[in-house]
């Protein structure tokens, strides 16, 4: 945290030293998850892993006299129009921010800028506005030594404000002692004794998550609303080569898409392939891009919209599922997996699915042809029994797929592969048949671990009493249906219906 250079002294070095919280920061900065990296494509600068690091980095670079923005310096009078031009549909927010930031020497309270994911550029707008100002005044940074003399002087606002910007503050909440760190950061100006600190916090979570109930000093909230349909139209149109055509395309497709999501990143990702489809007739030369052609194109694209909507939205992973880091369910969209699986793994997967869905007590009825509870007593379903069933079903839905030990998986695998392997006549199968039917070879166990690696099976924590690990089937219903169809396995015959 101490300034490296001996000369002017970095403004952040006046943070009282020897403190616990700053050590916490440094320690955790290495481990903090850089989870949102995937979403930052729209930013000009990539987000740093730790907010504090970013701030330090920024103030360093200011100190070296570098401009943070890639553009040239802009005169203050032009700033508003320039920003509006660069960040469309954000007029009121830009106006408010510029008002709050004021002149380079104007003091300010901590600001808390928040808005949903993918309202991203505006956050950039904020940094841009600040850096533009800070960039023009980088000479006059205060050193803590000067501070004492400064207090006595008549305060005529001669010192420029040093802005510290903390991006992605919501990640701090996951740190141990994060709350404390945030509250210390908000009061940085008080601790350091510097009046001319401009603290700006940028978060994707609202102030409720940070400032409720803890009695913390509140920063001034600034909300960046999500874009409305018109705004989205304007933004997506930006930097497109063929504006007229793209505009026509957007007016045809944007409405249904914006009913599902209004995030710019998701939308631009989803619309790209659709636009390729849209322009296909033009490229083939069958349609000319005039008014008549547009109408044709409109009717041409309509049937594709729904299917594209259903596919694209599910394919792209959101930040949340990235956080889960592979524990995302493998869905039916990954059907290409189907062709990479060996027959043995397919059977393993099916048996795992059965294990997860069926209660273990019913295995005998399904798989043991001789025994089990063969005498089926048909009881009249009374009112209470129906309700009980319903409750049970609810519970099952809430709990998700069940876990099972390896032995159960292998036992069921033996049963189904023995039963159905001889009905099929594939070469691969006969060799497998001999092996798996009689003895459990190490190949099968290898396949299990492969499935775990592919995230189709989830290997849970081991049972305390038994000591053996328990597994859970991670594949979705659709995928299993597809897999069982491909090997002609009558899955529904083996599933317990409640």
């Amino acid at each position, binding site marked *: 945290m101490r300034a490296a250079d001996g000369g002017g002294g970095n403004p952040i070095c006046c943070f009282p030293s020897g403190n*616990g919280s*700053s050590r916490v920061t440094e320690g955790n900065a290495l481990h903090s998850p850089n989870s949102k990296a995937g979403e930052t494509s729209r930013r000009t600068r990539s987000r740093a892993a730790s907010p504090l690091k970013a701030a330090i980095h920024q103030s360093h670079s200011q100190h070296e006299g570098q401009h943070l923005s890639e553009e040239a310096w802009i005169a203050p009078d032009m700033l508003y129009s320039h920003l509006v031009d660069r960040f469309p549909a954000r007029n009121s927010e830009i106006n408010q921010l510029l008002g*709050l930031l004021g002149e380079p020497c104007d003091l*300010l309270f901590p600001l808390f800028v928040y808005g949903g994911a993918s309202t991203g550029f505006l956050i950039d707008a904020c940094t841009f506005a600040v850096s533009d100002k800070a960039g023009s005044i980088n000479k006059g940074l205060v050193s803590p030594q000067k501070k004492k003399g400064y207090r006595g002087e008549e305060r005529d606002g001669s010192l420029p404000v040093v802005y510290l910007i903390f991006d992605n503050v919501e990640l701090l909440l996951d740190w141990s002692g994060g709350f404390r760190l945030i509250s210390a950061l908000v009061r940085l100006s008080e601790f350091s004794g510097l009046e001319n600190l401009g603290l700006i916090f940028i978060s994707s979570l609202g102030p409720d998550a940070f400032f409720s109930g803890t009695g913390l*000093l509140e920063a001034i909230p600034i*909300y960046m609303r999500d874009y409305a349909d018109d705004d989205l139209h304007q933004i997506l149109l930006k930097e497109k080569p063929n504006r007229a055509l793209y505009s026509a395309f957007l007016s045809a497709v944007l409405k249904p898409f914006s009913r599902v999501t209004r995030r710019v990143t998701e939308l631009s990702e989803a619309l790209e392939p659709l636009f390729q489809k849209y322009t296909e007739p033009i490229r083939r030369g069958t349609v000319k891009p005039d008014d008549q052609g547009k109408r044709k194109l409109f009717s041409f694209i309509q049937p594709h919209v729904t299917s594209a909507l259903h596919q694209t939205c599910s394919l792209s992973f959101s930040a*949340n599922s990235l956080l889960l880091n592979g524990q995302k369910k493998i869905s039916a969209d990954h059907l290409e997996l189907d062709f990479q699986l060996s027959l043995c793994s397919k059977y393993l997967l099916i048996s795992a699915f059965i294990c997860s869905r069926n209660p273990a007590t019913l295995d005998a009825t399904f798989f043991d042809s001789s025994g089990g509870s063969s005498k089926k007593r048909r009881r009249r379903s009374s009112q209470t029994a129906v309700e009980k069933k319903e409750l049970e079903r609810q519970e099952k839905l*809430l709990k998700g797929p069940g876990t099972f030990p390896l032995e159960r998986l292998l036992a069921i695998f033996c049963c189904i592969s023995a039963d159905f392997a001889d009905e099929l006549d594939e070469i691969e199968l006969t060799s497998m048949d001999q092996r798996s039917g009689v003895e459990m070879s190490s190949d099968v166990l290898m396949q299990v671990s492969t499935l775990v690696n592919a995230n189709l099976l989830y290997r849970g924590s081991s049972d305390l009493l038994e000591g053996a690990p328990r597994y859970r089937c991670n594949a979705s219903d659709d995928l299993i249906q597809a897999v069982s169809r491909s090997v002609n396995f009558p899955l529904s015959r083996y599933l317990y219906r409640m």
Partner: protein
Amino acid sequence: MEGSSPTRRRRKAVAEEENQIASSTDIPKETDIVPSKRPRNNDPALARRAISLLRSRLCGHSQPLLLPEAQENERKIFELLSETIRNASNNSILLLGPRGCGKSLVLNKVMVEIQHEYPERLSVIRLSGLLHTDDYSALREIAKQLCVEHQLVFSKAASFDDNSQFLTTMLRECALSHKSVVFILDDFDLFAQMSKQKLLYNLLNIMQSREAQALVIGVSCRLDADQLLEKRVRSRFSHRKILFNPPSADDLQKLLPQLLSLPVDSSTIDTNYAEAFNASIQDMFKSKDVKNILLSITKVDLSPRHMLNFLFLVVCAMDWKYGFLSLSNFKQACVALRRQTKLESMRDASVLELYLLVSMKRLEGKERETYNFITVFKEYKSLHDSHSTCDLYPQEVCQRAFENLLDRQLIMIADGRRSSIGIEFCPVKLLVSSYEIEEGLKSSPVCPAILLQWFAHEEFK
């Protein structure tokens, strides 16, 4: 986080008020406030200078204006300090009060005065519970500040024992040279929450001996801060407490115009302009609209800090081309300060997200206590099966929207952590009340009509 019934009611009241304010004064008429006879300011540079001055007054560290109660407290603390110094006694005191009520401000002011009154008779050590989170770092910081104070060289390599020995020696030396050591512990409650309260015990224990001459001042926003102390610590504590109450609304109303007026005899600001500005401020605070806005602000929070935040927003909203504050500035600031975050995120939610929210609401109506994405999706689907709308999307798409809802903090995972199974099986909770959903649906520009019906009629299928 969960909206219990009192908070829900409060939110409701706030929302209604907001609507009133918004509806009663939709079009700002600036000319109403500043009569035309007053000379119009045509020099933007003047206005900018005025804004700068007001901002530094509001945000600066030396806020000069104190309320009567604070002045009383200031006197009390001053007396205690001077008594401690004169009698060479040991003391401890707690300054308690809600955040932003001027505890640190008053204390700092007193410290400046007392150092002026008794130069060379005391050395001050400041610690903060937020910064010094364990005994080791706190003791180190104490040793460091003592070193700086007495022009000694601080050794970074000093161990905990070294530092603690150093502290005892220094205290004894200070007592011998008739110097009082004042420990100011900011966020005292956090020190009390450290394990074993070793630091507090050590400090207070030293003060039991005649060798030391020290004063411990604890500053805390928890009114029960002394109840947090262990028995052995509490018995060594003097139980002297000074309460800082937030000022009354009337006091604040009197104070605010003073905070916003410009100095008439300043070298930087033109006297004519300053007078015109001050007169317009006086007029503003007499008008009924501004009074209503202030009332709605003070109803929520009376602390001076809150008011400063509000005034800061007012000043920032000022149009420097126009040169005076207007009613619309006040309104803007009021709206900006009192965000209704949940309603805002409801307004921004997409149609599919609204559908999911209503499905969850319906599940709650059926007295289903826990639900996860799968059950919500089932409900959503069953609604669509009976009424075919154009908004039936497959499960993956819905799950995406569900994750967006989590991001928006309209729902949360019930047990606070994601389980390993996947997001769709985690039990979730609604973070918005039924009233807020209703308001959100009404204010949403995209909400379809059928959704409102589904929301309103629980039996509607």
